């Protein structure tokens, strides 16, 4: 979080000092039909280390973020000069062609931030493209790794526990697995309902990044906000962590388990729903959610597993998210 604050400060600096700076973001790289080899080719950052956002590259954060092995994430939106994203109720912001979403992943190691990878989502004329860039040991350059990578990393999690994992950088196809909606790549994070904290949407509107500050009737609670209704927190967590695949047009469409914030049919969110193709993911349980019985629910069983044949989500998790499991377990336990 501290790192994020410094990133924000730099962005403000960037916006105020923009005019005297040299080249802005390389729009041609976003719009080309190639696969730029180095992250620096886009000029999203002024520095080689990927911390100082360039002009019009705006940091943002989510109310409830996707869990990725406790990695710190640094997110940025880029919308080209003279254009705006359109707010769309409490749903996904509608970004014009030429926009980019940039997300760096790292850990604080020995008191120093260390970036592992930066993923970019480029809005090209023929649709969105997702590409992963992996940082070198010296933290001076991130290069394209279409086939992904595994990086051994040790860090201390927020509860103080020491962790050693094989961090997985997704390959280009795995990027699409989560970002696919009816076979097209789309953004996942920047839904208005998940951007409401600390007046962020108003700031976006004021900066001209979005066309207006939208009315959000049903916001996703801020992660850790214990005063928010349990159901909202649980459904928000499912929306952010699961619904990009578990929706009617997503990678898990065949499961019939739909975990979007909008879904209101109990069997579709898993209540007394039998598994379709879970295999040993069922863990001998009959239902995705057995009301009142988290330990007898497939959902909790799979979130608690690290076995690739069982664990959910399928991509991006090699640690159990204890806090997420606790939230959903409480939600199911209190369900009648």
């Amino acid at each position, binding site marked *: 979080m501290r790192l994020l604050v410094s990133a924000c400060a730099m962005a403000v600096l960037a916006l105020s000092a923009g005019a005297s700076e040299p080249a802005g973001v*390389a729009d*041609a*790289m976003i719009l*080309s*039909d*190639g*696969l*730029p*080899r*180095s992250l620096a*080719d886009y000029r999203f950052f002024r520095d080689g280390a990927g911390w100082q956002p360039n002009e019009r590259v705006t940091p943002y954060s989510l109310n409830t973020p996707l869990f990725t092995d406790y990695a710190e994430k640094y997110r940025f939106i880029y919308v080209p000069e003279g254009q705006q994203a359109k707010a769309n109720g409490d749903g996904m912001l509608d970004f014009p062609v030429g926009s980019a979403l940039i997300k760096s992943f790292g850990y604080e190691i020995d008191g120093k931030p260390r970036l592992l990878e930066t993923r970019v989502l480029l809005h090209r004329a*023929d649709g969105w493209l997702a590409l992963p860039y992996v940082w070198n040991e010296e933290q001076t350059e991130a290069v394209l790794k*279409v*086939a*992904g*990578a*595994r990086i051994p990393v040790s860090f201390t999690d927020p509860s103080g526990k020491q962790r050693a994992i*094989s961090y*997985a950088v997704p*390959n*280009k*196809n*795995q990027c*699409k*697995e989560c970002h*696919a909606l009816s*076979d097209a790549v789309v953004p996942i994070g920047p839904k208005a309902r998940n951007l409401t904290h600390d007046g962020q949407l108003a700031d976006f509107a004021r900066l001209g990044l979005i066309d207006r500050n939208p009315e959000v009737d049903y916001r996703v609670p801020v992660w850790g906000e214990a005063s928010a209704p349990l159901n909202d927190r649980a459904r928000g967590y499912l929306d952010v962590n699961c619904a990009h695949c578990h929706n*009617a047009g997503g*990678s898990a*469409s*065949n499961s*019939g388990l739909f975990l979007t914030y909008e879904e209101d049919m109990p*069997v*579709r969110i898993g209540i007394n*729903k*039998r*598994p*379709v*193709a*879970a*295999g*040993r*993911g*069922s*863990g*001998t*349980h*009959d*239902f995705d959610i057995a009301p009142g019985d988290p330990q007898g629910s*497939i959902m909790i069983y799979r979130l608690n597993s690290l*076995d*690739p*044949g*069982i664990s959910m989500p*399928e*991509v991006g998790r*090699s640690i159990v998210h204890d806090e997420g499991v606790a939230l959903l377990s409480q939600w199911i336990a209190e369900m009648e």
Partner: protein
Amino acid sequence: MIRSLLVATALCLSAPALAKTIAVAPGEDAQERLQEALILAEPGDVVALGAGRFDLVDGLSLDVDGVTVRGDGMDQTVLNFAGQLGAGEGLLVTSDNVILRDFAIEDSKGDGIKSKGADNIVYYKIRVEWTRGPHPENGAYAIYPVESSNVLVDSVTTIGSSDAGIYVGQSENIIVRNSVAKYNVAGIEIENSIGADVYNNIAVNNTGGILVFDLPNIPKQGGRNVRVFDNIVVDNNTPNFAPEGNIVASVPTGMGIMVMSHYEVEVFDNIIAENGTGNILIVSYTKGQNDPNYNPKPIGVRVFENQHGRAGYKPAFPGGDLLKAAFGGAIPPIIEDGTGENILIGDDVPVMTLGLTTPGQPLTEAKPALSAGASEPFDGGQLKPVVLPEAMEAAVR
């Protein structure tokens, strides 16, 4: 800037190019080299896998249309996933017009090969195997096309799946033929699909040989028009090792061909023998469900001209032993629960009906009765053969 643009142009995805062969050999960094080849391949390309064992640490995936992935043979080129750390399957295909042929997948942590929304997919001479044999912690499906139109599974071998060896789900226009399924829970399963021909296969030593199911609360349901013919379905008596909770965990051990809650199924010209519970079982979906769009009954099932061997000598369902004694040592080879509509049995063997009237009614309320089967065998064929696009057939000629 200019240099970057040149690089970008060189890597351009949409530039027209002549189809090429990208050779990938086993050895160091197999994961990255093979995955990169699958990503950078262009339509028309062949990714040629060399002979030997590829030791892989993550799932592989292909999302480029029109690519052929070809090995040196299902016993020569082996993709070994024993050390897999991530992904729900060994290989995932999400693009159209893909041909997979002449290689093996071994010991993947989840499914073997899954193709989702992948139209016109061909699986040819592929082997998917869990090498320790039947085990509840084996992956669920070996060959797993789902949500696809035009599926050809030809001359594959599947061994050890903890769910189904060849599982085609929520798809249309399907042929499964010339394949071997052994030591799986279900050998071959067609589920919630429309239009399938399953023929010239051997299903042996599974828990159940061939299943045709339609299940509730699934995006695509109303399974119909499936023909199961010219198969050898023998000795499917491997004790059920599916994890509880899955539908196949309820398949009785010793099942030949099972039809559950489905429209329009024809089972004919098969050789079905040595299945301890029964050769053919026709039933409703029995678990509770309240899906208003779901038909739990078998409707329009025609069974004819099959050759029956011994069956029903070890019925693995509640009350089976009593029935076996009542029938003098073996229950009839064909069993129906009585809830179906338009069930025509043309085979000249005894048929047992359980006399149930409602889907989900408990077996304790069954009123088993014997009927003689058809004295005049008939040809009940009404469904038309499945025809696949010519390019798919050409790919396996």
